[in-house]
């Protein structure tokens, strides 16, 4: 024995970090959700290969047609293939969702850690965060898209910015309560430096709530993208997203509900799955709920 163990492997570290409960009790719901999500992700990733048409190819004579052999889900107002657009649109929607989650979580994590540990920075950062929180996210997002033009990046930016203060607050509160933990105080008495304590002891505490929060941000970002498109401040129609497909199709809601139905179905299924997985993760990771069931 006595091989001096190397720093635990990455995987082990992450698993340790989210403190998985000993018993996994997962119902059918989350498993179905995971499968649905996986299916959506695979289909959208493969969209260049499997879509029957180019999502941009227009046929002015085939506008607003019903399902046919050539166009399995019919065509939109530009005579483009709805099926191809829906599966291609998922890519951008998912990208925006995941991108917003990852970016806001990372930035929020950094700011939150700093804020949670340095009193002086905290006062200033939290005032700014309070201010950002006070501006209704959707208005801020529209204004930001108007500022940067309706590209994917600016929509991503516009959706991410309002999420950051929420993440910061979450991280900060976790840090503030984790600071009081005896093992952190022990680390102080062991002479560990502040950055080291911050990163090695405090940061891992934020991972579980951040994973949960990340799923919610992802879901709400996909939804916000759709709403921005609806308000005319979304990604340009050249790049299909579930949101702008629906926004373009919304005037045909009564005539051709399928224009909204299919992207809407994909979007709702996707968000539903993400939310369900988020809930499952929360139920498994939330120590308060665990206590109740113990």
């Amino acid at each position: 024995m006595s091989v001096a163990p190397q720093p635990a492997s990455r995987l082990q570290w992450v698993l340790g970090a989210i403190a998985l409960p000993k018993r996994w009790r997962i119902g059918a719901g989350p498993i179905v959700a995971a499968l649905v999500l996986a299916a959506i992700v695979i289909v959208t990733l493969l969209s260049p290969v499997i879509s029957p048409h180019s999502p941009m190819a227009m046929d002015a004579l085939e506008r607003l047609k019903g399902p046919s052999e050539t166009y399995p889900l019919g065509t939109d107002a530009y005579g483009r293939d709805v099926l191809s657009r829906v599966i291609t649109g998922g890519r951008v929607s998912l990208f925006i969702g995941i991108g917003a989650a990852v970016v806001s979580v990372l930035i929020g994590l950094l700011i939150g850690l700093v804020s949670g540990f340095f009193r002086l920075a905290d006062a200033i950062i939290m005032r700014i965060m309070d201010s950002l929180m006070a501006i209704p996210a959707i208005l801020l997002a529209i204004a930001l898209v108007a500022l940067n033009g309706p590209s994917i990046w600016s929509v991503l930016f516009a959706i991410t910015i309002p999420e950051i203060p929420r993440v910061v607050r979450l991280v900060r509160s976790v840090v503030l309560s984790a600071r009081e933990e005896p093992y952190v105080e022990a680390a102080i008495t062991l002479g560990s430096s502040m950055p080291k304590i911050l990163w090695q002891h405090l940061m891992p505490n934020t991972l579980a709530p951040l994973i949960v929060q990340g799923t919610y941000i992802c879901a709400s970002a996909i939804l916000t993208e759709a709403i921005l498109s609806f308000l005319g401040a979304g990604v340009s129609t050249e790049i299909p997203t579930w949101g702008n497909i629906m926004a373009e199709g919304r005037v045909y809601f009564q005539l051709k509900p399928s224009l909204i139905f299919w992207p809407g179905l994909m979007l709702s299924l996707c968000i539903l799955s993400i939310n369900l997985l988020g809930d499952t993760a929360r139920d498994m990771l939330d120590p308060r709920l665990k206590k109740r069931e113990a």
Partner: protein
Amino acid sequence: MMKQRACSHPASRALRTRSGVAGLLAATFLASASLIHPATAQDGETTITAVMHSGLRVLDPIITTAHITRNHGYMIYDVLVATDENFEPQPQMADWTISDDNLVYTFTLRDGLTFHDGEPVTAADAVASLNRWGERDSGGQLIFDVTESLEATDDKTIVWTLEKPFPALLDTIGKQSAIPPFIMPERVASGSADEAITDYTGSGPFVFVEEEYEPGVSVTYEKFEDYVPRDEEPSWMAGGKDVKVDRVEWVTMPDAQTTINALISGEIDYIEQVQVDLLPLLETSQDVVVETRDDLGYQTIGRMNFLYPPFDDVKIRQAAMMALSQEDVLGTLIGNPEYYTTCGAIFGCGTPLADETGSETLTSGGDVEGAKQLLEEAGYDNTPVVLMQPTDVVSLTAQPVVAAQALREAGFNVDMQAMDWQTLVTRRASQAEPSEGGWNLFFTNWMVPEINSPLISPMLNGRGDEAWFGWPTDEKIEELRAEFIAADTPEKQKEVAAKIQAHNMENVNYIPLGQYIMPQARRDNITGMIPSPVPVFWNVEKSE
């Protein structure tokens, strides 16, 4: 004259009598159900609730060319001269005489003209209004360029003296687009032409109800009881403006579908413009009439930036035009062929000056191969074409998308940039490099009366920096325009117009992409709407 297609499918009324649970639940909404129709008037007053194509936000019809503000102008103001359905100027507020040398125009105001505040309309009011208009309107500027004097010689008489003849003077002051010379009180019209007015007193058939005005949402007009209409039958903007309802309310609805539902359920009486794609929704409703009020409709166009590559090269401009197909653009934009027509005439089909020289490729599906060849000859170096695409204006979203596809097929490197309309109108004014906030190509729509003459069509200005966005320096077209102004007979005018058409298609000052009409819809108890390019509310009746 009017295309009328009363939609009559006798199916829908059965909805009222659903039994069982639905009926029971319906009873619980009893209170609300009886309140569904607010448009039906109180106290025998008749009110027309109309949904216009956009919200009214600017109230000064001289400072802006926005159609909704012009329409508002026609409600509350009157004009000296108005065009009838044969494009002939007719007396409205004033009659006129012209001196034999065609240099002196004498206008005499008719009797009974009163402003809404009770003051009589005088010649001084008219002079002040014309002066202010002349600072803003491009046609007006041309007249004032040759004006020696414009004076009120007494309360009723206006004398307009020119330095040299301007044969189209009456046509210009009688036009209904873009800025008609509305007559305002002198105290209002003497203000700066760059600052919006704040006093909305007119002498037109309706009175603006200021306290009920909500910018962008709703505006209310009441019948002006003291207005004396002319005796002639109404014809376009001319003739008797006889108001037959008590109030007209313009409301804005941001959602096209909601608007149509509201018309079907009788919550509103009139929709100025119905998206053609949505017409099937109205087909099921018996008591809604869909019709076309303005047969000329709109011309959709593309405009290039002459200052920067690649469109500083005429060959490349020609190649771009050659790649485009009107049928594709219109089919995508409008869909239903009943409501669009390909038209190669830059002055619009159905107008006196119409001529389709040089538009063969446009109207026959485009010539991608020819375009490729032209591009090669021109030595196109793959400079990206910055194409601006507005995302929030329904009638302008399709053109860039279709054009981008066609141009790419022809070998252009297209950089389509999406933006809201506001950004677009700001950016198109920028003369910067396309890569630094400038542009190469954008699209817009004109009402046909706005471009049906070289005098008023802004795209035909060739004075470089002074020209409309795109800034072509084109001496040839300036010569032709001067020739047109000097032409004193319709025949001569047509001849010059044909030359201008040919030159435009050669030089590609702009690309006409065809003509379309927007149908309107009304409840069938609204009658007496005259055909007109401006949705006017005189002569309209509402029966119970």
